């Protein structure tokens, strides 16, 4: 008895105190006590994008174009979205699509993580904790990193809200696309001088000076689109900024910090497993088979039978394929054609044919056929395609014998070859759409590595390099890098274009809808015109 009462006398209870004591959880108040803790939160936003960059963001920017498709295969709907994935191809997506909502959320969640980290970093005393980083530089980088998210959001969703603090305001209002453009531009211009140079430790996968310029160049290249007005009849173009684009391309091209950037020797060097060694990649999303996953082209692109070719410890799922509307852009002498697997497929020994696994073709040799569109006797559509239809992309180097259906190749966001093409395009557009020598030189310099030195097809002239040809060259160079939608819109071919069983779509589909669920929660959001 006595001890019980003594127990309650001595207990440290307090009669109205209801604060929570955390144990296996952390609150912000109990964190940011050491350098390691500060860094762990500083790099949190960078690991967020990994799950969606080569996944849903890529889907929306690529499966909506002629570049590649994920059709039904022998009656089996595509995974990761089913009919919504088919709808991307046909341009019949709706504001109710969960795939669009998830992409929208993934991007804004990245904004949220960055907002939270900026707020946290502002409260940290970098000197006291001996973080070993320049606080202003860290904050500048995070703001430009956030600007990159807003660049993608504005590019994909048009008129969107701008939020700089988590939960404030809880229901942010929509901003006009041109205002988001101006916001992104200002964020970069205000902060880019504080960024680190190439080669500074711990800047791989981060925004360095050249990455910020590349982002600005991309922004200005599309300025006419982004500053235009979205209407139910399509876009009323805004103001072009070709000179600004050229200016920042030049800054990258002439950059010498950390040795500057050079074109890699081979066309596929930027996509190797160890592409952190590339001299060409300016900004990448860092992937790893274990720690930073969702780069899964070894799993998504190949046929299950390819397991025998590459000695994988898993069977690929044969999801993405490319048809002749795009495949035919690659000439036979262009080394970049090697990124496509076509024709009869063999096991690792090079002689044992791989077999088809389903339907009427079961047991027959697997012959990958990209030329089926409008081929006599082949009526395959997105709903009726078979396992052997289409070419398979292997631009990213595959790790033979991999036990894990993940890849360690990093995904280039900005790389020097793209800067060459961007500058060439800006020069041509400034020149009324015609190429000048400088533009031709840019393209020829960039693509020289893709041809033998004696190949007559290697070099453009001012007469052969038309704007359309430049678009095709972009297709060949930046295929699988998630730029096709952006390019087709700039060349006004995204909605009006046709490929395979995709028909012309409504002009307002140059942006995706604001997800209906998001609008139902946040009444301050406005739907994009047309939807």
């Amino acid at each position: 008895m006595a001890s019980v009462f003594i127990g309650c006398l001595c207990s440290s209870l307090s009669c109205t105190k209801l604060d929570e004591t955390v144990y296996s959880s952390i609150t912000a108040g109990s964190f940011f006590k050491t350098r390691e803790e500060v860094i762990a939160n500083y790099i949190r936003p960078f690991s967020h994008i990994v799950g969606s960059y080569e996944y849903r963001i890529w889907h929306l920017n690529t499966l909506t174009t002629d570049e590649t498709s994920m059709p039904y295969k022998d009656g089996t709907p595509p995974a990761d979205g089913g009919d919504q994935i088919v709808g991307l191809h046909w341009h019949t997506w709706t504001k109710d699509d969960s795939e669009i909502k998830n992409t929208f959320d993934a991007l804004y969640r990245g904004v949220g993580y960055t907002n939270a980290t900026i707020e946290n970093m502002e409260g940290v005393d970098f000197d006291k904790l001996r973080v070993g980083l320049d606080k202003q530089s860290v904050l500048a980088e995070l703001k430009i990193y956030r600007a990159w998210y807003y660049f993608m959001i504005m590019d994909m969703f048009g008129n969107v809200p701008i939020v700089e603090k988590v939960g404030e305001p809880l229901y942010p209002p929509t901003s006009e696309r041109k205002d988001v453009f101006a916001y992104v531009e200002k964020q970069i211009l205000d902060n880019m001088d504080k960024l680190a140079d190439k080669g500074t430790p711990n800047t791989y996968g981060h925004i360095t000076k050249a990455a910020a310029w590349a982002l600005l160049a991309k922004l200005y290249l599309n300025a006419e689109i982004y500053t235009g007005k979205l209407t139910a009849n399509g876009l009323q173009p805004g103001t072009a900024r070709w000179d600004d684009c050229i200016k920042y391309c030049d800054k990258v091209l002439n950059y010498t910090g950390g040795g500057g950037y050079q074109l890699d020797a081979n066309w596929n060097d930027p996509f190797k497993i160890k592409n952190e060694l590339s001299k060409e990649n300016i900004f990448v999303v860092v992937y790893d088979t274990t720690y930073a996953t969702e780069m899964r082209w070894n799993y998504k692109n190949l046929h299950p039978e390819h397991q025998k070719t590459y000695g994988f410890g898993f069977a690929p799922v044969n999801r993405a394929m490319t048809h002749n509307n795009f495949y035919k852009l690659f000439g036979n002498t262009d080394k970049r054609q090697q990124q496509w697997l076509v024709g009869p497929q063999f096991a690792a020994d090079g002689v044992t044919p791989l077999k088809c696994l389903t339907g009427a073709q079961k047991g027959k040799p697997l012959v990958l056929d990209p030329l089926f569109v409008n081929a006599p006797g082949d009526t395959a559509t997105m709903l009726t395609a078979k396992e052997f239809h289409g070419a398979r992309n292997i631009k990213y180097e595959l790790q033979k014998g991999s036990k894990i259906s993940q890849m360690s190749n990093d995904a280039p966001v900005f790389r020097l070859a793209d800067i060459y093409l961007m500058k060439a395009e800006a020069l041509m557009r400034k020149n009324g759409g015609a190429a000048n020598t400088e533009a031709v030189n840019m393209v020829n310099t960039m693509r020289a590595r893709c041809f033998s030195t004696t190949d007559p097809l290697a070099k453009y002239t001012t007469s052969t390099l038309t704007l359309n040809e430049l678009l095709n060259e972009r297709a060949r160079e930046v295929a699988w890098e998630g730029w096709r939608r952006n390019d087709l819109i700039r060349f006004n071919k995204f909605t009006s274009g046709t490929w395979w069983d995709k028909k012309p779509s409504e002009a307002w589909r140059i942006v995706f809808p604001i997800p209906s669920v998001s609008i139902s929660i946040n009444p301050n959001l406005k739907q994009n015109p047309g939807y």
Partner: protein
Amino acid sequence: MTGSNLGQRSLLNRLKLVNQLPRHMKRRTTCYIHFCFPALFVLLLAAFPALAQNKTVTGKVTDAKDNRALEAVTVIVKDSKLATQTRSDGSFSINVPANTKYLNFSAIGYETQQVQLGASLTLAIAMVQTEKSIEDVVVIGYGVTRKTDVTSAITSVKEKDFNKGAVISPMSLVQGKVPGLVIVNSNGTDPNGQSSMQLRGVSTLKGSTSPFVVIDGVPGGNLNNLSPEDVESIDVLRDGSAAAIYGTRGSNGVIIVTTKRAKSGTASFNYDSYVYTDIPKKFPAVLTAEQYRAYADVYKRTNPTFVLNDGGASTDWFKVLSKTPVSQVHNFSVSSGTDKSTIRAAVSIRNLDGIAISTWRKIVNTRLSFTQKALDNKLSIQGNIATSFLNYLNSDNTIYGDAMDRNPTFPVFNPDGSYFEDPLDSKGNPYARRMQTEDGERIKHINGSVKATLDLMPNLKASGFFAFQRRDAISYYYQSRDAFLSRINGQNGNASRSTSFSYDRTFEYTLDYNKRFGKHSLSALAGYSYQDFMSEDFNASNRNFLTDAFSYNNLGAGQAFAAGTAGAGLGSGKSSSTLIAFFGRAIYNYNEKYLLTASLRREGSSKFGINHKWGLFPAVSLGWRISRESFMPEKGLFEDLKLRLGYGVTGNQEGIGAYNSLATLSTGASFLWDNTFVPTYGASRNPNPDLRWEKKTEYNLGIDFALRGGKVSGSIDLYSRETSDLLLDATAPVPSLIHQTILVNLGKMRNRGVELALNLKLIENKKFSWTNSLTFSYNDNLLQSVTYGASTSAPVDHYSLPQNMGSAFRREVGQPIGNFYGKVFKDFDVQNNKWIFYTQAEDPALDAQNKKIIGNGMPKMFAGMSNNLSYGRFDMTVFLRGTFMFDLLNIMDLVYTNRARYSNNFLQKGLDIPISSYAYSNYFIEKGDFVKLDNLTMGYTINTGKIKYLKKARVYASGQNLLTFTKFSGRDPDIQVNGLEPGLAMMNFYPRATTLTLGISLGF
């Protein structure tokens, strides 16, 4: 004396100290005094004056009713320690100080009498039996009240009315006995099965639907470590006006369990034992081996390439997986009591055996309770300590699901005695899997409580209560290297262990005031309650063992952990929370005619958001005993007639976990730093500073009645309860938040219903009696709104059906919980092997997906009827229980009638379905209504009059779940109907059984 003075002084010093403390410490110190409260007992001890000069008082004490002499009545000089007891003839003699003015006479079961000493020193005292004899007392939380004073819907079930026979859980004792309380043992007599409870429908979208349990005053008591034999009574606070005294935990109703205590003046030893077995009732009719082989020819007509995979045996897989269990329960208890102290000790040993192979549960429970009076009966101390040791092998219901899916021509064993496995199989031999897997847990519970009550003044009592509950568990799991799944997944043995520890403490202090003045009677209560909770856990798992020899006993021997491969890992966690409340209640009664009860609880939880830490839970209820009005005829129809009206606000906080309102950080995906991948830390959830309890407001209108002659009595209650601030993981606004969901309070739900309890004494004479008690309840549920942000949330489809058949349920505003949503069957398209469903064009009630609400799994109506008959020394109980007005989705048929499963097996019913294609529609929805002969018990009480040492002896036989009357075509319609996904007849199941029990009860 000196010591007491010291105590007094030191307390005063402390009080002085408070005033000298710096201001910022004062708040803590006030609380300190609150916890010093027990010291008051010590202080008061010092307050009794000494006595001098004597006189002798003598007399006799009798029972006022029948004038018999009363033995062991305590005679005590008021405000002193001087006392004596009456002898067997009722006489007493006591030496008292000359200045003595009052003598107090007290005895258990009688009203204490205070007698003023006049000139006469010889007294004749007639003691009046207390009205609060056990039958008339209702436990209401923080106290008891007379049944006649009750103004809320409360059902009190005493031991004599408990369900008989084999009882797994204490709540089975009152299954069907409390109107509105639905208890489901969805696994029947599975020794590891848990009963689920729900009162007056579902009133949450996220939290638990289970009523709040209080055991001997311990809030949040654990029923799992309580032996049913130790329970004396179960009181259920059904409506909000009664439950509001439990604040944030009262919304689902409150169940108050009171355990047995020794009675004064008794000494007994009881031994109760029973043994029971389970006989499985009905296994699903899959193809037998003969039918299976015969079907091959039929199947080949449509599948010409099919080759029968004949294992050469004829195996009834259900039989292989089942055994005939024998379970035993032994309960020993000793109790003894004097007027000053009582003690009861009980040990219960329960070896429960399951029908399923490798399924059992062994329990040893002990419980010790005592009461002690001191300070001239002014101080009473009650204590309980209970331990429970459990050891069990987990029930694995998937083996029966897999048995349905198993080729009946496969043997269990190969000729060499090893397990037969088919190389083309995906699940493996279920018998082998069970035998190759050890999966169990050992749990220790230790609970204790002590309550001290002190009479401060004749009408004022102060109590201090402390309780703790502690649970330690360690689980073990090992699957052999040879197990089929281990082999095909390359696990090479799979071992894991986990431990968990939880501990909660309760401190409660109350003041009770009872006063009767003239026609007014008041009983008031004020109190403070503090409860904190802590839980910790740790787990480890590993794979890739060289040998099975270690089993789960040497996790380090596995290679997977070191290699960093899948299936190996470590985890641990710890969390805590606190609940604090201030409460008060007044029960007022004017002339035994007009009754008023009002209570208020102010309660806060650490789990609530910073903006809503504290909630207020008021309740008012009124009673009018019409039968006592003068306008009611004196010898009229009603002996008792009472009208009750109650209003109460309660909360439910079960849906909120610790830290759910806070901005916490957790690890995200790794990122590069210094050329290696390091973990990152970022926001782990959207914080919600507004997070709070679900709030329920309930109105209750009730009538209690008893017809003259005592043959008919009962009660009727009508209620309407509305829950607002429903908790739900809502879609969050992204932007501006980081995570896609946020736990918020939104939405409203309503339950309305009627409940009836009726007790009939049909026959009552010396030889033969027959009483009948009936309960009935009807509940109507409606989800009124779910709104977050700008608009009403879209309907939510939930419970994914197997084989990609979509979701079973749709939850939407304007509809009740438990709606089945799907297509409507029209015909079979045999040609194309497809189902034909009605389309919107044919039936405008269908929506664009050609779907509509095709049933509801939540029963609207429940009824129970128990008949107690006795003839001489024979007694018999017949208990019928029914559930009505609901539908069941027969998932078992939905999947296993498909003949496409022929390579494994399918239900014989499937032969009547001309196609073999999976689709969810109303074709598989059936009416679930049933009536069960739930319990038939016959007993015989042996005449022990001539047997030395034996005071009582009874033998009985009981049958449970004997008959089921239903149109449902599946196994047993008595399945899970509580919660948010009611009425699913599952593929995986534990066999339902008829239970036969033999028992004996001896008293020495």
